[in-house]
């Protein structure tokens, strides 16, 4: 069930990506609407991270193309922001919170230029949004997992982009950070930004996202969340692995209802 978006910001056409001749993504064809909070859902190894990396042009693509805002990637690079997985960098790097968030401005500054006052203002504003102003001079090695995730989020915000890609921003963070992040993402969506999030928790997916992509190497579904997060499509995405999970959900539902009806 692949629904095409109106007012498209991302257009992925027949995309195939493979590592070591093994396909990771097979013939993906989808579009994403402007102003959406998009969740990419699928089992481990389904190619979720690879999909956003291919959309941003940082993994080699076997076939197909990606258009962002109707243009080739290199033309619109300044409008794209990225929050990588927290584990993808070495947090012992000698830098402060402020230094890392300032990196979000580097793309706009241009070659050999130094940060100006305007850049510093944007950085402070982004630190405020994620609640890290008090920790701005803290060394990044001394942050908790949730705080590190907020640093990456602030860095992406500092890019002042229109389209945001986030790789598992909720992985390993405390519940306070998760709530703060999702609030921020909703604000961004309401400002007309598009946010694409790789997500692994089915429970919260329905609540968080208004557009959902289900993948398992192949694209299973893409469309408004209520139409996509159905038992049948989830079964198709997760194969047999979902059985236990869905049975448990059924049990919980029955118990909840039986209490309500008695």
């Amino acid at each position: 069930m692949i629904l095409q978006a109106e007012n498209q910001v991302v257009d992925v056409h027949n995309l195939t990506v493979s590592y070591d001749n093994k396909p990771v993504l097979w013939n993906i064809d989808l579009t994403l609407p402007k102003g959406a909070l998009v969740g990419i859902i699928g089992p481990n190894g389904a190619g979720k991270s690879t999909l956003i990396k291919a959309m941003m042009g940082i993994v080699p693509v076997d076939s197909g193309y990606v258009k962002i805002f109707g243009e080739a990637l290199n033309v619109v690079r300044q409008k794209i922001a990225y929050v990588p997985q927290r584990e993808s960098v070495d947090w012992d790097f000698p830098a402060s919170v402020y230094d890392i968030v300032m990196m979000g401005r580097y793309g706009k500054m241009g070659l050999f230029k130094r940060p100006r006052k305007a850049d510093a203002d944007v950085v402070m504003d982004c630190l405020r949004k994620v609640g890290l102003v008090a920790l701005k001079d803290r060394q990044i090695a001394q942050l908790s997992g949730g705080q590190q995730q907020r640093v990456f989020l602030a860095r992406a915000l500092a890019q002042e982009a229109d389209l945001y890609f986030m790789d598992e921003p909720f992985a390993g963070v405390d519940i306070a950070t998760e709530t703060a992040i999702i609030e921020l993402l909703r604000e961004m969506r309401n400002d007309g930004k598009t946010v694409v999030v790789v997500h692994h928790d089915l429970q919260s997916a329905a609540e968080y996202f208004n557009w959902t992509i289900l993948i398992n190497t192949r694209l299973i579904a893409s469309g408004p969340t209520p139409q996509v997060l159905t038992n049948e499509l989830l079964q198709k995405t997760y194969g047999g692995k979902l059985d236990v999970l869905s049975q448990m959900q059924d049990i919980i539902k029955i118990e909840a209802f039986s209490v309500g009806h008695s």
Partner: protein
Amino acid sequence: MSEIWIILTGALVAISCGLLGSFLLLRKMAMVGDAISHAVLPGIVISFLITGTRESLPMLIGAGIIGVITTFLIEMLHQKLKLQEDASIGVSFTFLFALGVILISQFADKIDLDQDCVLYGDLAMIPFDQLTLTSGIEIGPRAFYVSMINLMVVIAVIVLAYKEFVITTFDNSYAKIIGISATLWHYVLMSCVSFTTVTSFESVGAILVVAFLVVPAATAYLLTNKLKIMLALSALFGLLSSVGGYYLATYFDSSIAGSMSVVAGFIFGLVFSYTKIAVRNTVQTEPILK
């Protein structure tokens, strides 16, 4: 007089290496520096065979090219052929270095280069190769000026491209996404390392230049978590190693470059013990129960 020239030349080499070494260390590529310093040997010999002189410029170009080829080779083996990175480094540089050794022994009668000189350098000899003005006045050893120009280039590149080096070191794929070419800056850094290695090979040699690339940077890394301070400290430790090493060598009448490396290692040991003690003390002063 020659004493000052030797110390100054050693110091210039050490500072260049300290600055570049900091970035190599943070990129977890300290051993790529090792690889380049060995692999440039065939470049040096081939330039020598073509031009027939020990002029610095052709050697710099020849070795610079080979240095970049080495990094390219390592990247290719690692990325394309999926060989482990340490194995890729091992395969590439031993091959190129061995090629250099064969070339030297093959053409030993034609060239004024010997393996000992290339491997261990000879700082004590540098004052005998003076740069003379057209008026006939000797203004100092050639190696000194070559090292100074190299240091100025290294500093200029780091100052100009500081943010590019920082971002590609910390988060390579993020740099790509915001439009900063990770590949380009990788090769810029590696070219700087190649050139520095070649300018240093006459003075400290291909083996000990590795000590200058790795040890001062590693010492600085133990002491700070601010990159700019790390760069400054790394340069300072390089400087101290070369000055201290010179006097150690004169006192024991032994190899200057060897003594410099020993001093660098000694400073590392001191700093390492200091940080261990400092950490233990802070742990003890922290309340166990809050």
